[in-house]
């Protein structure tokens, strides 16, 4: 009940934000929406399936580079096409990577995903002609539902049409993910998380289902990445760097991975916290490291873990 009420309140607040909050605060919400989508995918792997990926940023970066590549090297400007292409590219890469990674569990899975992330980072860094090297590729302003909004300046575009587009995509992603988690497939994944050997003996194809979850997570990562790149206007190799994957895991812990809405809460709080801490110290990573330690020790359930609730997903 509390979660539902908070959810409704949150959606209302986010819908009203461009009318009541400053444009700066609204632009801060944009990466939070993008991360929220990516984290819904990461959490399907972590919370539902029991696999912790340290390479999810790989798919976020793929989505961002897809947006950059399409807007600068092709005539494509449609955000719908960009988002679909980002999802397709992420899925295409997730198939071979996932086939290898899901053969392993626990730390081995985590390390292998980390390795693939770093491999992709090196690729982005070195293949200058294709990726722009360390400078990355710019992301040009896309059209939203076919509308270029020529009269709007950058901030007005981002806090107007793009804001609502990203919010709508986040809500859609959340609905789709909710459906997946509550489907027979979602239950099979939870059975795998709880006891993979037992799951196999009651007929669950453990590796195959882990693989499906991996690809679905990647698609959410890719879509999030495409949305992330539009407000920053840039896709650069740091998106694929392992610290970025680490940030994603941090956001998940911050929000509370055991709650369905944990990823979204984590993304929003992370972005605003980062902004706040960066405004008064250059050592924000130091502060975040300390926060992460405190979080794990005292509030392992994250922010939403503080809510009274009997059931843990």
């Amino acid at each position, binding site marked *: 009940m509390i979660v539902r009420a908070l959810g409704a309140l949150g959606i209302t607040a986010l819908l009203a934000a461009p009318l009541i909050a400053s444009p700066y605060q609204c632009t801060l919400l944009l990466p939070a929406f993008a991360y929220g989508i990516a984290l819904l995918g990461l959490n399907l792997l972590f919370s539902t399936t029991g696999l912790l990926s340290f390479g999810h940023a790989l798919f976020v970066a793929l989505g961002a580079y897809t947006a950059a590549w399409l807007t600068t090297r092709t005539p494509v400007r449609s955000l719908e096409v960009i988002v679909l292409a980002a999802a397709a590219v992420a899925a295409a890469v997730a198939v071979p990577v996932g086939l290898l990674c899901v053969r392993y569990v626990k730390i081995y899975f985590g390390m292998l995903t980390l390795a693939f992330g770093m491999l992709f980072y090196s690729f982005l860094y070195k293949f200058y002609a294709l990726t722009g090297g360390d400078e990355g590729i710019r992301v040009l302003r896309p059209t939203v539902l076919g509308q270029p909004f020529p009269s709007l300046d950058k901030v007005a575009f981002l806090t107007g049409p793009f804001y609502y587009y990203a919010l709508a995509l986040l809500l859609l992603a959340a609905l789709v993910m909710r*459906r*997946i988690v*509550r*489907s*027979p*497939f*979602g*239950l*099979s994944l*939870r*059975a795998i*998380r*709880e*006891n993979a*050997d*037992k*799951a*196999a*003996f*009651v*007929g*669950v*194809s*453990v590796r*195959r*289902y882990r693989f*499906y979850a991996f690809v679905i997570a990647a698609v959410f990562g890719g879509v999030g990445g495409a949305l992330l790149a539009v407000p920053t206007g840039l896709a650069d190799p740091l998106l694929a760097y392992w610290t970025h994957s680490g940030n994603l895991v941090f956001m998940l812990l911050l929000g509370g991975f055991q709650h369905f809405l944990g990823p979204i809460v984590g993304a929003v709080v992370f972005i605003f916290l980062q902004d706040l801490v960066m405004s008064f110290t250059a050592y924000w990573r130091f502060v975040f490291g300390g926060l992460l330690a405190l979080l794990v020790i005292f509030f392992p359930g994250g922010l939403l873990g503080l809510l009274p609730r009997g059931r*843990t997903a």
Partner: protein
Amino acid sequence: MSTLLEAVDVRKRYGTFTALDGVTLTIPAGQFVSIVGPNGAGKTTLVNVLTGAVAPTSGAVRFKNHDVSGAGPVRLAQLGMARAFQLVNVFPGLTVGETIAVAALARRGRGARLFASLAADQEIWDAVATVAELFGLGASLGRPARTLPQGDKKLLDVASAFALQPEVILLDEPTSGVSTADKHAVMNVLVQAAARMGVKAIVQVEHDMDIVFGYSDRIVALHQGRVLADGPPAALQADDTVMATVVGRARA
């Protein structure tokens, strides 16, 4: 009676150790078979080979005329063979209902349905309720498995195997960890559930001779990787040599 499961001249070596040394065994529909033998006789290896968990070094394992040597648990579950282990094996964080539902979904090939609503699948929840009722777990459907008493965990473990509606079920010491007072109750539940769920054959590995002689249609005695005796309980009981080897004492 048609043959459901058969092992033909199965050998299994682990390095220089021969766990199974030419075991031939046919399990037809309609039998409750107990596999007995002293420690190290090869009982567990035989069950592992029969359930496709371990591939034999040589010989064939066929289930309903499919070669299932080393086929793995998922394929056997799909073909209609289930297995429950000696150690209680549950999904700690899933409820009783969810645990049985996992198997019921897998049985119907619905485990990968991505966008279907599980809550709205009445057929699954009806099947879950039926199985839970058979095992006396009807009142605990919403309880997480980890909160169940040990005896109920064991029943839940077996119930989830039954939810696959298997034709053959292999049980590894179904009454281990169950008190002497309760073991007959557990066995009665099992036998009744098997009849109700259409299980055609039960194969169990069991040390408890009360259970072995009380419920089996047939007993297969293993010794040093070979079949020492194979027949109805009365025939084994009459053979003092077999009884001494298998039970470790002559049965009075």
